[in-house]
């Protein structure tokens, strides 16, 4: 996924990147810094006394599969859009948005499983970091889902026919990014917990 994003980036660069797309890339760098800050805080804290670990609930594996699938559908929907296959584009973008919401539902289920097991925000171990880091990531997915719904409604508004590929590309790049970010965070927790 990551290499795919990179190639796309280089291709656009050669053509001269659209300012909005460039803004997105800088924004992605800034989101990376947020999570780099949190995960490095995790590493610093891990070696401090009083650290407690928690098993990562299995449901997060399902959410990983879901978000990977949604990345595939968003890719296909972009392809459909470029081919002016609007019917296919619409259905794929709908599926992507729904998968995004399903992902968030899975995260909430995961959180409540942990919470019901008696692991709350009290303390300073892996679980507390998990709530915050995964929660913050879910917020970013939610933002992406909202953006998906915006272009989804645009696709259904019959007044204007829009063939500008930039908004769709921006949203799809962002979506791949939150996907890649999730894979990083999930693996980070699997290794470090």
């Amino acid at each position, binding site marked *: 996924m990551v290499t795919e994003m990179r190639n796309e980036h280089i291709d656009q660069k050669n053509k001269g990147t659209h300012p*909005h797309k*460039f803004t997105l890339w800088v924004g992605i760098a*800034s989101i990376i810094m*947020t999570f780099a800050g949190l995960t490095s*805080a995790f590493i610093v804290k891990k070696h401090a006394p009083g650290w407690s670990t928690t098993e990562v609930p299995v449901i997060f594996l399902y959410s990983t599969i879901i978000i990977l699938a949604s990345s595939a559908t968003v890719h296909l929907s972009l392809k459909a859009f470029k081919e002016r296959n609007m019917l296919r584009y619409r259905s794929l973008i709908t599926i992507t948005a729904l998968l995004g919401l399903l992902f968030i539902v899975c995260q909430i289920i995961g959180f409540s499983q942990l919470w019901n097991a008696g692991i709350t925000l009290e*303390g300073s171990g892996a679980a*507390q970091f998990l709530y915050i880091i995964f929660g*913050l990531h879910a917020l970013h997915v939610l933002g992406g889902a909202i953006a998906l719904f915006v272009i989804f409604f645009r696709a259904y508004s019959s007044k204007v026919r829009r063939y500008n590929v930039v908004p769709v590309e921006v949203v799809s790049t962002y979506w791949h990014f939150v996907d890649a970010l999730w894979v990083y965070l999930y693996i980070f927790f699997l290794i470090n917990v």
Partner: protein
Amino acid sequence: MSNDVALHGHPEVVGSHEAHAHHHKETFITKYVFSQDHKMIAKQFLITGMVWAVIGGLMSVLFRLQLGFPDESFPWLEDVLGRWAKGGKISAENYYALITMHGTVLVFFVLTGGLSGTFANFLIPLQIGARDMASPMMNMLSYWFFFGGSIVMISSLFVQTGPFSGGWTAYPPLSALGDASPGSKVGMDLWIISMAMFIISQLLAGLNYISTVLNMRTKGMSMNRLPLTVWALFFTAVLGVLSFPVLLSGVVLLIFDRHAGSSFYLSDIFIASTNTALPNEGGSAILYQHLFWFLGHPEVYIILLPAMGIASEVLSVNARKPIFGYFAMIISMFAITVLAFLVWAHHMFVTGLNPFLGSVFVLLTLMIAVPSAIKVFNWLTTLFKANIRFTPAMLCAIGFVSLFISGGLTGIFLGNSTLDIHLHDTYFVIAHFHIVMGVSAFFGMFAGVYHWFPKMYGRYMNNTLAYIHFWGTIIGAYLIFWPMHYEGFAGMPRRYLDYGIWESFKQFAELNKFISIVAIITFALQFLFLFNFFYSIFKGRKVKDQNPWKANTLEWTTPINPGHGNWPGEIPEVHRWAYDYSKDGRDFIPQTEPIDPNESKH
């Protein structure tokens, strides 16, 4: 072409007001309030920053009254401040609230929002030849988040328990426990909300600045032809975009510690005021310091780099010489940007940091002296044998260089972890950072305002007032902060309410009085600048010449009062760098002039 894309919502890209009327009527709201014109947003940032500077400066006057005259009471203070100064003396809690707010306001709302907010917005599109920012909408949002954050921060001054009072760095446990001090209650929540809005504002702005510089330059404006102001503002934006998010993650953890019972920063605490032992275990306040200073140090350069860029441009224009070492300047700024991320722990030498790690940070810190010295050398060589025009802007730019040298040298002392054991948290630190990034950045800002005021408002500021303001301020600044070095060497700690009870620091009573008096005079002098600024907007001498400073950069090819879109016709094409002054017998050659085949190479 990309310029057109960004502006498709605004067909009124024509310069004159007559032309506006034909297309699209601008209301008062769209023109002055929710404006998407980068020039108006710049002015909004500037004036908001000025309001903040007066508030923040007034705070320093109030606490300097306490420091200079600890035994006296000022009944009029109670009339003005009410319960903040019962019996005419500022209470201890409010003294701490004042120094905390002074720091927060000046660092973030004046020298970050007011300085880079103003000049990045104003200069980037004008100097690279763009009609507006990459996203004018985001630019507008950036200002309104800044404004919202400002309102929240001001509102914290008026809550019952007072604003946050644990220092601008907001270290836990003071910032994490509501019971720790009165200011840690609602005041701290408002501080967090305000800072979160400020961070969002800076991120929106930074994203815009970066993509504008990289994507929207006019034809011929390659990166190596950019004026140094744009380079400096570009690096500033890069620093902001990469460091503010880390502060945000630090603050997120802080919120959970405050309100959700987590213990990221808290461990083994007994609160005397409520006589309770807290259950929190395993947290570490040092973790917060790491996250905070990972922003906090780049923040210093976020403040300083725009001033450096402005000084470079103003020095070159008024010395009528090309800037010395253009590429060295860019590489130095790049080096400063990279090093800014690698030195944060020098704020934490005495926190029990591993001494070996400390020595690595000493090395990296002292390395910053190299690019800084290169820049100083280049500024001085630009001035060397120059035909200097001592405009107010030029004086302020020279003042900036002077202050940067004086303050930078003491940084070498503080960057050593061994010397820092003695000097940390003393007045030496206060003197160092106020000179090197506080006052010097202010001089960069003054230089920028004097220099670009004709472009902003089509009028000149008054020179006589400007000269009085310059000399008064620079002498005042040195008289205030120079003596603090001595106090710091003697070990006088910062942030204390009253030094009279300490035998070792009684000797400084008169010196403190002197500093306070100068501080009050210097603060009063700033109203001269404010008066000059606001008077000149309406009554200043009108600019008749399109290029009043005989400068090369693109902003002076726009009409005297440019409309939204900056250039009435085509955006001019660029053929050369911005610093062809006194070349081939010509005083200056604008960037838009094609290169003559017989021209000498620079």
